Each structure stands twice: as C-alpha cells, then as structure tokens.
C-alpha cells in the first residue's frame, strides 16, 4: 500500500481564545475523493488552509504528499491545487490573462501551450478574452478549477467549490472531478450539499472543530444508528406539532406532503410515531435513514456539548 496523500494527526488551530480546529486527525488515500462536511464555522476552511500551508497549526503535525505541513510549505504549494471558497482571481484580467499569470507563477514551460490546453479541456476557449469579473458564478468556478489543475497537481483541495452554482454546472463540475480522480488525482472537497457528499468515495464530518465521523457514506449512516419513519396523510402538520419533543423523537422534518421522523431508540420511536399517526388519522411506515438525517443529528448532538 502506498503512503496516503494526506495524513494529519491532532491538527489544532486557535484564533485568540477560540479553538477553531481541535485535534483533527485525517487520512486521505491517493486517488480518493474525500468529502469534507460540516456546518458553517465548523473549521473546514481552517483545516484545509493548514494542510495547504496557508496557516500555521498551533498543534499537531502531518504530511501532505509526503511533505511536512510545517516546514515544507513551498514543496506542498507546488504540488497542490487549492481552490478558495471565495473567487480569488483577478476580476480585471481576462480568463486567459489569469491563467497565464498562474502558469508563470508555477514556472510552467511552455506556458502558452499549458494555458491553451487547459482552456480547451475545460471548454473555456470561447471565453478566453472575457474579463473574469463579468463571468457568472458557474464560469468563475470553472476558471478557478482550470487555474488550480493547470499545473497538474497531485492533490486538489476544493473549499465549497459549488456554492452559488446552478445544478447543471454542479453536475458537470462533479463529472470533471471524477474524471480527474480516475487519472490518479486525490481530491479533498468541502461541501454543504448532501448529493455531493454521496458522490465522494469517503466523507469526514467536522463540527465545532472536532472530527466526529468519517468513512464511506453507507457506513457513516449505519454508524449513526438512527431509525427513520415517515408519516403520510391529510394532517401531517398536526402530527408534526404533536411529535416535536415527544418521547424517542429527535427530528421531525416535513418533506412535501410527508413527514420524516428520526430517533435513536427504534422501539420508542416506533411506539410514539404509530400512536401519533393513529390519533391524527395519518399512516406511518418504516423508511431509510438519509445522510442528511445523520448530519442534522450530528449537528444537534455536538451543539449540546459546546467546547
């Protein structure tokens, strides 16, 4: 087995008195697409920045592509493509000018050819002379992706790459990511979207700076040990009111005309749900627990124990 692309242990970062990332241990194998999930402000961006040499960790250590994250930042920067959460290319430069700049910084020779190939690969050739500032969200994201894969990195770190991008562009973006991973590239991608999480080989869930779950999607869902039931019928709103805070019920969420009810104790949940369904004239049935249910559950649990 080859060495992992990312291997960090006990990564910690404090901003003043606030511990933003607390002892995160993470390993990503070569060629793997790792989804990095967690609510806003949970420390995803900070963790990524520490791993690509943009922030100095206050504790912990690790290697990215075999290089020490504290002492070999320059080597890491050369081999990693990092796509920032906020669009961070020059809006007063055209697509081609931005890419030429990046090619120059990575010392690519011949830069002209690298830029031309990248433009063609990502379908940007027709817009090469358009100012980056005038691009829509989807095209900006495409430009950012082009810029961070142009130097043929071994590892991509994408920080919420699809925020504010329409579903079609998102779909195309993920097809691109999978194509790159097939070519041997390792990808770490942070996201809020469940459908995106399910397209990852493995996921890691971070909340309030703590890594609280990681593994393959079905495994994470199974490990959560949740039971989900659905209620259908004419009076779901009334059922929802009765179920909120009831014994054995942890989550109640309306999905269109149906109600998803989630709990950790299967027996107790079943009893409560069936009683409420009977009383309100609705029907209850067993259902599959989704990844989203798991995340809502995890989020709620970690909120109860703030550090």
């Amino acid at each position, binding site marked *: 087995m080859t060495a992992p692309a990312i291997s960090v242990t006990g990564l910690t970062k404090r901003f003043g008195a606030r511990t933003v990332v607390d002892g995160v241990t993470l390993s990503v194998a070569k060629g793997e697409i790792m989804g990095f999930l967690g609510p806003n402000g949970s420390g995803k961006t900070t963790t990524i*920045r520490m791993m*690509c*040499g*943009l*922030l*100095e960790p206050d504790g912990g250590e690790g290697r990215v592509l075999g290089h020490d994250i504290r002492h070999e*930042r*320059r080597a890491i*920067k*050369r081999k*990693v493509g*990092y796509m*920032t959460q*906020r*669009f*961070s*290319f*020059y*809006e007063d430069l055209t697509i081609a000018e931005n890419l030429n700049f*990046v090619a120059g*910084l*990575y*010392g690519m020779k011949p830069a002209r050819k690298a830029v031309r190939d990248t433009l063609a690969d990502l379908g940007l050739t027709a817009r090469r002379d358009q100012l980056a500032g005038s691009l829509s969200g989807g095209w900006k994201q495409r430009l950012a992706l082009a810029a961070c894969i142009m130097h043929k990195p071994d590892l991509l770190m994408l920080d919420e790459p699809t925020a504010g991008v329409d579903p079609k562009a998102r779909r195309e973006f993920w097809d691109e990511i999978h194509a790159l991973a097939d070519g041997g590239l390792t990808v770490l991608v942070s996201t809020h979207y469940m459908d995106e999480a399910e397209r990852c080989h493995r996921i890691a869930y971070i909340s309030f700076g703590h890594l609280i779950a990681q593994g393959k999607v079905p495994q994470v869902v199974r490990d959560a040990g949740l039971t989900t039931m659905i209620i259908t019928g004419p009076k779901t709103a009334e059922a929802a009111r009765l179920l909120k805070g009831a014994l054995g019920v942890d989550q109640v969420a309306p999905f269109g005309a149906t109600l998803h009810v989630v709990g950790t104790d299967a027996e107790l949940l079943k009893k409560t749900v069936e009683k409420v369904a009977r009383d309100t004239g609705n029907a209850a049935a067993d259902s599959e627990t989704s990844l989203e249910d798991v995340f809502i559950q995890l989020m709620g649990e970690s909120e109860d124990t703030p550090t």
Partner: protein
Amino acid sequence: MSRFFSFTRLAALLVKESIQMRRDRVTFAMMIGVPLLQLMLFGFAINTDPKGLPAALVAPTQDRFTRAMISALELTGYYRFVAPDASAPLAEEMIARGDVAFVVTVPSDFGRRIERGDRARILIEADATDPSVASGAISTLSTVAASALRREAGLDATAPPGNGIDITVHRRYNPEGITQYNIVPGLLGVILQLTMVMMTAMALIRETERGTMENLLSMPATPLEIMLGKVVPYFAVGAVQVAVVLVSAKLVFDVPFVGAVHVVLAGIFVFVLALVILGYLISTVSRTQMQAMQLTFFFFLPSLLLSGFMFPYRGMPPWAQVLGEIFPLTHFLRLIRSVMLKGADATTVAGSFSALTLFAIGLALLALLRFRRTLD
C-alpha cells in the same frame, strides 16, 4: 414622527456612525493626532525668518578686529559659526553640501588695514538657493560693521578710527533670488513622494481586500518575488514622472542644471526605490486601502514641513532638524539642490546618498519581515 425629520431616525444614524468611528481606530487616531501634530510642527518648528544659521569662517589671521567682526555678526542672531577656522576649500565644500548657509572670509590683512586707516574688506558668501533664508541675514549687514568697529574702538582707545569696512555679499547659486530655482527641484521630490508611496501602498492591500491574497499565497511565489512584482511597475511610473519634471524644470521654469546629470539620476533612483519600498511597508501594516491612504498622509505631512521643502531646514530648532533627518525627502532635497543648483559632485553629496541607500535597505528588510507568508 415627522415625515421629513425625526429625532429617532437621526439618533439611529448618529449611534451607528459613532460605533463605526470607534471601531476604526486608525481613523480615530488620525483625527485626534493630526491636528495636534500640525499644531506642534507649525507652532514650534517652522520659522520663516530663520536665525542661528550655520556659518563657516575663513580667517587666516584671527586678530582682535576679526574677532570683533565675528562677534558682531553673531550678535545679530542670524549667524552661528559652526566652523570657525575653516580652510577655503573646506568652506566651499560645506556650502555646496548645504552644511552651512554662509561663508565669511576675512582676508589676512584685515586687521592691518584697519590699523593703518585703510578701507578693510570682508566677503560674505550666502547660499541663496532658498532666497528667503539669506535675505534676513544679509539685511542686517549694513549696521554690523559700524557697530563692530565702534565697540572695538571703545575697548581700545588707541586704535585708529579706520576708514570703514566694505562688506561684499555674494548670493551664490541664485544671484537673482528666483524662488522657482529652489522650489522646482524640491517639487520633484514631493511629487515623487506622494505618488510613489501612495500607489505602492495601495498595491498589496488591494490583493487582501479583493481576496486574491489567499490565492496568491497558495501558489509558489516568495515574499521577495511578490515585493519586487509590486514595486517595480511603480518604479517605472516614477521614472516617467522624473523625466516630465526635469524637462519642464528646464523648459518651463528655466532652472539651472549645474551639476552632473548622472549624479542626480543616481540620487533619484535610490530615492524612488526607498519610496516604493516604504509604500509597500505601509501596505503590509494596514488592513484596508483607507488605512494605507491615511498612513501615507500621516507620513506625508511632517515630511513636507520638516524636510526643508516648505520652510528652511536650517532655520528650524535642533529637535525639529533631528526629526527631519528621518524623512528620505530631507536627504533627497539636499542632494538634488546641491547637485542641480550648486554643481556639487558625487563625493560632496555622498552623505545624502548613503542615507537614502540606508533607508531603501532598511525599509526593504522591515517590509520582508512584516510580510505574512500565511494568512495568520
């Protein structure tokens, strides 16, 4: 609540504005600090009728008549003899460099001629590059000679009354007292300072403000490369400004260019280098473009007042002169005025030149240290 004016609405606006003002500490400090600084500088340092100007004395035989003459000059309050026993070449170098504003030459037969009853002569050379500096000191001369002799005669009754003293005044470098000769080369320094420092100060901050800094740092560029990348373009802009000002100095204002062009250009080169690096340093310590702008002005104002651009440097009190030394502009003004107007050579202005070099190197090191390689 009135439709047109409501105190509640006004109060809400005032509260919000004062919170924002309090949060922006730099602006707040500027609003309090700048008036205070202006008051102190204008109030104490600036003197449009400068007294106690440094002078050199060239007098091979320092007899009692010479001493009487010198003390009479000192009594006017305008002259302060910092080099009371200078040789003629040394005195020439000092006035060319700007170390002294006057060279008083008393011929060796001065005393003998007075004793013999002949007309005696002394020569006062004034540095007239800044006409306002010399005028006060020169205007008192007519009464000085008479009072000196009267006093000397009173002390020693045997001395013959003499036939009077001729004081010859040479207004060096700018005999017609044309203000532009002094102002235009100085303006070159001021214009360069304002544009160079401000433009460079904006450069790095813009990256931070627009969020492109994170991207730039995630790519393999070293701090030195980033600094040079930011500084060199503005350096080129500075070169264009220099050409424009120097050509118009010649064509429009007819300012004499006595010294060697290459010495002036070398001086400008180091000066602009120091300025762009200073601007870069400012942008490493500020967080917004607004702050960078404020810091630039914070620096600009005292340097304008204390460098000798607006008011004679030698006319300021000693503490203000010491303060003036910390501005690159002060050294640049000395250099360019010495070379352009007085024809000083490279060795004469070596002091100013090395001061500017020191600024450039020191500021560059400071900027590289201040530069954050990470987003911490």
